[in-house]
């Protein structure tokens, strides 16, 4: 069968579809140039009221960034400007300088307080947000150290958990490591379950008792082997 010679011209469906896309893009382009004109008008208005468009542009750019991006950019600019000889102080030195204002002030307060330490006893005082303990060593020289003040028992849990999880009062056998293992073996022979381990969780003999039980049973404490 001979191939049908269909001419593709301006009157086909394909051409219509394509023209549709082109028109849409053209419309959007037009809107864009209109928006650009609007933006320029706003800048002009701001300038007329005495603001500098250059800085407004910079602020708008900065607002598009995340805070960490902004910090990064500032730090990198610092570094490059210093390297290029535009700054007279290194960024690190400037940072340390800013910090030392507080640190030295705090140290001098601590030094002054050292004079007040009694011979027997100690002072705990809060300086610069951190508590400092001051006392005299055996030679009588005043010493100072930071204390991280933490309540003796966490207030959120102390009162409550005490009642909720009473410490099991178990008589812990008095024996050495080998004795613990032997007790485990004995428990198996007496048909006691593996969870009847008499040692508390943080006692290293608990593991040995468990090992003894398992050795005597020849299994892993989870029922007979199949």
């Amino acid at each position, binding site marked *: 069968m001979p191939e049908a010679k269909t001419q593709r011209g301006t009157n086909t469906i394909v051409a219509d579809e394509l023209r549709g896309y082109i028109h849409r893009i053209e419309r959007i382009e037009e809107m864009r140039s209109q928006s650009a004109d609007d933006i320029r008008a706003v800048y002009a208005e701001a300038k007329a009221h005495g603001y500098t468009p250059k800085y407004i542009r910079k602020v708008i750019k900065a607002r598009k960034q995340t805070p960490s991006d902004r910090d990064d950019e500032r730090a990198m600019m610092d570094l490059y400007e210093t390297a290029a000889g535009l700054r007279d102080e290194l960024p690190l030195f400037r940072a340390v300088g800013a910090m030392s204002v507080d640190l030295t002030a705090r140290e001098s307060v601590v030094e002054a307080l050292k004079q007040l330490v009694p011979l027997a006893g100690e002072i705990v005082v809060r300086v610069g947000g951190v508590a400092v303990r001051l006392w005299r060593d055996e030679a009588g020289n005043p010493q100072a150290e930071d204390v991280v003040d933490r309540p003796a028992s966490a207030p959120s*849990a*102390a009162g409550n958990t005490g009642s909720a*999880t009473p410490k*099991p009062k178990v008589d812990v056998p008095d024996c050495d490591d080998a004795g613990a293992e032997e007790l485990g073996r004995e428990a198996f022979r007496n048909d006691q379950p593996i*969870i009847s381990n008499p*040692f508390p969780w943080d006692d290293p003999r608990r593991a040995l008792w468990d090992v003894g039980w398992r050795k005597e049973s020849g299994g*892993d404490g989870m029922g007979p082997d199949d």
Partner: protein
Amino acid sequence: MARRTAPRDIASYGDLFDPKEAAEPILGRAVRDSLTEWLTEIWAADDLVKVGLQPRRRAMFDGVPGVGKTTLAHHLAARLGLPMLAVRPDKLISKWVGQSSEQIGALFDAAAAADPPILLFLDEFDAYARHRRRSEQGADDERNMIVDTFLQRVEQHSGFLIAATNFADHVDQAMWRRFDIHITLELPGLAERRRIIQRYLMPYGLPADALESLAIALETASPALIRSFCEGLKRQIILGPLLKLDMSRGAVIDRVVSTVHPHKDVGKPRLWSHGSQDQSVRAMPWPLPAAEEVKAEPPVCRPDVAVVSLNDRRNKP
């Protein structure tokens, strides 16, 4: 100033399990070995620290419902000598925006401060740790925040933590990574089913052949289903005469099988297809003898049946 929730008693976040009440789990060899390894690792903490390692503290159990994830976690806690707190979602998740995260934080704080330490057990973990997704509504934000809070607190938590889920593939990837041990609990194999029947049929027992036959007929049943079946049988033995029901063997089995069903998505054991006509029922002595009267030793030379994996059938709607 924001109103903070008052500190809560740790027991108010769920149910406390005493180490003395744990049952012996009935598990396949591979799972038992990995648990023994983990226990040994925890007890060898001092030696591990010397080489710069910490014992693993967080485990995730996954498996179809009723395979014994809670029993296993409770057994582990008991071996370690620690109480276990099974956290209940209704005690943690709140209808107020932001309060869930606050309560999650408070739970972990309370668990960290508990003395003796507590093993935290988070059942139905997929409820807290679903994949985070791009927020389209406020509820998505809140849910993402719950997952984020968990991510951080799980990472920081220094105590033992076990999470259990039926839907391992619903758990957020980042959350999955935070667990050092992942154990999949399969349905019990033949040997395990034998022992589960023995345990839950007490004080009754079955002779070796009948036990073997029933264990085969219960293939693909979960431990929970086997337990329901055995308890149903015992219930019938006690209540049947009081209700003047037909107490013949077939009638009793049919009544039990018709009141306890496996879920449609898991396998249907043969016993449920055949009912009282099943050969295991014909092998069953009736009335059931007491456990002491039978010597229920497993036959020695029977070939074992492979554990049936339902991985591909799971999670189908």
